[in-house]
């Protein structure tokens, strides 16, 4: 395979920046593609070159294969990294890249065919002897077919998009009466997210854990696994917090799941980074859920505990390189990631696009921020509202929990509403602290995760609000009187500090 010199990243936001960071470290040139809504986006600014690929809606820009391929041709890129979402799991796009003589950084189209369409993946896994969740063999042509099958399987069931992952196009359905509207919503979301509205269904397992195995294959037939990630903290089937190691996985179970994941990947001739997702029930049986044939949003936690740059490995194997090592490695320490969204948890997680007036991201020991935004940037309302991924590492889970709390305390985003407080309440929740949470956790604890008032902070806020009002009113009066704002120079704080005697102390 040819040596890569210039990589076009067919994505936007944090993952585009993430991929370009590694390209830059490896001395590779980078090309961004951007929609009209992303002219000022960080990835457009971060790349060496940038090409506009169409109007704001993804269907008219990021999902238009010809526009992406034109941009590659025009800039002389020799490889395409798809990130996650968009065209990352589109086997047709992989074939188009092959035809255009471009290296697609991901698995071969054949592996994607076998795993990308979820119903086909299930059938292939059954053949390879991998346990699967009971469900459909193929997508349904009509809602009536779905209804008939669901009646046989028994409610509750899960409706899922065949064409992609990431919680998009997924709906839990409790009873037949809800199936039709869920069907419509799932199909519409699936179309807008993946350009493919095929939908299938699965038995809904009661409060399972969502645990996934990171695997990596090279073009020489080697496949290894890089341990698991616990992803059960989900709402609307959208992951919110991920960690590794999983608090519920023993080293025996890790080895068993790793072996199955490697077998699954090998059975389809997998090359590159991939993730095999499992549901783990309360008896610690595990079932194949789906395979994500691309880099995962939550890959940083795996990087923390293995020291591996997964994007660097992707580029390495895409150029025909052999995996740097072939034995499974034990996770070192513990890592937690939280996803920061531009959304308001108190209004049913309504997205909150808009201008970021001020931004201060956490840092310090063993804290990583993967952000796709910057101070002054306007978060557009066309794309996923995730603005950043915050991840931490520590020797133990308890220390990692303390660290992620500390880091969340440091996060300042002004101008738009984010879920930062919600995340803080989440990592402070006793069940989460004990590592005892399944996929129903966030739904059950929603009210508690919105948080309660701290009387001490309400008092501080009250004082602040009153002084603020007073300062505004003084300023106005000064302007009216034609005076300068005044009154803030003169006396030295040191000289006045003596006046600060006793008073209100924190308990």
């Amino acid at each position, binding site marked *: 395979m040819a040596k890569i010199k210039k990589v076009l990243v067919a994505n936007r936001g944090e993952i585009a920046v993430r991929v370009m960071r590694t390209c830059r470290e490896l001395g590779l040139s980078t090309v961004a593609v951007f929609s009209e809504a992303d002219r000022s986006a960080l990835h457009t600014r971060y790349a060496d070159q940038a090409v506009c690929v169409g109007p704001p809606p993804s269907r008219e820009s990021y999902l238009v294969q010809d526009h992406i391929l034109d941009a590659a041709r025009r800039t002389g890129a020799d490889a395409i990294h798809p990130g996650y979402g968009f065209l990352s799991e589109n086997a047709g796009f992989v074939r188009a890249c092959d035809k255009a003589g471009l290296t697609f950084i991901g698995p071969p189209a054949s592996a994607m065919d076998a795993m990308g369409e979820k119903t086909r993946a299930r059938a292939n896994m059954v053949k390879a002897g991998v346990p699967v969740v009971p469900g459909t063999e193929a997508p349904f042509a009509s809602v009536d077919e779905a209804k008939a099958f669901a009646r046989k399987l028994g409610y509750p069931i899960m409706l899922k998009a065949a064409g992609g992952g990431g919680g998009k196009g997924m709906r839990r359905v409790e009873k037949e009466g809800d199936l039709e509207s869920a069907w419509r*919503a799932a199909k519409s979301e699936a179309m807008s997210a993946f350009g493919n509205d095929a939908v299938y269904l699965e038995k809904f397992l009661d409060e399972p854990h969502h645990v996934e195995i990171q695997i990596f294959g090279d073009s020489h037939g080697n496949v290894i696994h890089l341990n698991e990630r616990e992803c059960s903290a989900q709402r609307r089937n959208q992951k919110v917090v991920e960690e590794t190691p999983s608090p519920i996985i023993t080293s025996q179970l890790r080895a068993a799941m790793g072996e199955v994941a490697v077998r699954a990947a090998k059975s389809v001739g997998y090359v590159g980074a991939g993730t095999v997702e499992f549901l783990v029930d309360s008896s610690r049986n595990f079932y194949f859920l789906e395979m994500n044939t691309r880099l995962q949003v939550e890959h940083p936690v795996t990087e923390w505990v293995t020291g591996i740059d997964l994007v660097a490995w992707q580029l390495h194997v895409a150029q025909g390189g052999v995996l740097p090592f072939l034995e499974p490695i034990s996770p070192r320490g513990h890592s937690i990631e939280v996803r920061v969204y531009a959304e308001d948890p108190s209004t049913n997680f309504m997205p909150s*696009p808009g201008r970021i007036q*001020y931004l201060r991201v956490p840092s310090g020991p063993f804290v990583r921020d993967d952000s796709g935004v910057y101070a002054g940037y306007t978060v557009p309302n066309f794309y996923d509202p995730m603005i950043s991924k915050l991840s931490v590492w520590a020797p133990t889970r308890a220390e990692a929990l303390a660290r992620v709390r500390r880091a969340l*305390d440091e996060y300042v985003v002004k101008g738009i509403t984010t879920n930062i407080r919600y995340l803080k309440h989440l990592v402070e929740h006793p069940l989460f602290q004990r590592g005892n949470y399944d996929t129903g956790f966030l739904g059950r604890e929603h009210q508690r995760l919105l948080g309660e008032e701290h009387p001490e*902070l309400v008092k501080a806020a009250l004082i602040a609000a*009153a002084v603020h009002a007073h300062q505004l009113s003084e300023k106005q009066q000064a302007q009216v009187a034609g005076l300068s704002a005044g009154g803030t120079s003169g006396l030295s704080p040191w000289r006045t500090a003596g006046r600060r005697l006793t008073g209100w102390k924190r308990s």
Partner: protein
Amino acid sequence: MARKTTYFAKNLAQKNGQATPVEVESLGNGLYAVTLDGHRYEVDSLVLPHGAVSMIVEDDSYNVDFDGKGDEVAVLVRGEVVRFDIADERRIRLRAAAATFQAEGKQTVSAPMPGKIVKVFVKVGDLVQEGQGLVVVEAMKMENELKAPKAGKVTEVHAKEGTAVENGAKLIVVE
């Protein structure tokens, strides 16, 4: 300049809560004396660029941010948000005068953000329950259902399926 003013603040999280009086006196040099529940606090309030405030209250250090317009202000302190309706006596009198007419029973459902109307469930004349879905708006790849804020009758429907709407656009009126 009024160096000493009493403000009345109502915590918006507490329904039917009382307004708390807070007296603020400028001591100059960024210092204020604040009297609350009979206690006097000395407050050092430094306004930073970008509008954040560093507030030291009797040695306790707080980073405070404000967001709001008119008399409603959201105060962000140590990662928590508290919303107040706050005004001095003069403002309160003005507000009382302005509040002669208010359509008590009429509730407007507006677009909370720019997006696309994908579904309208009601038409003029429909009777709806509180919490019943009225309209689905798609934005940022998510579908968001807007619900009836009260039980009543739909009197206006401005939302149209397939059309784009701006932030704050009036969609439905329930009376």
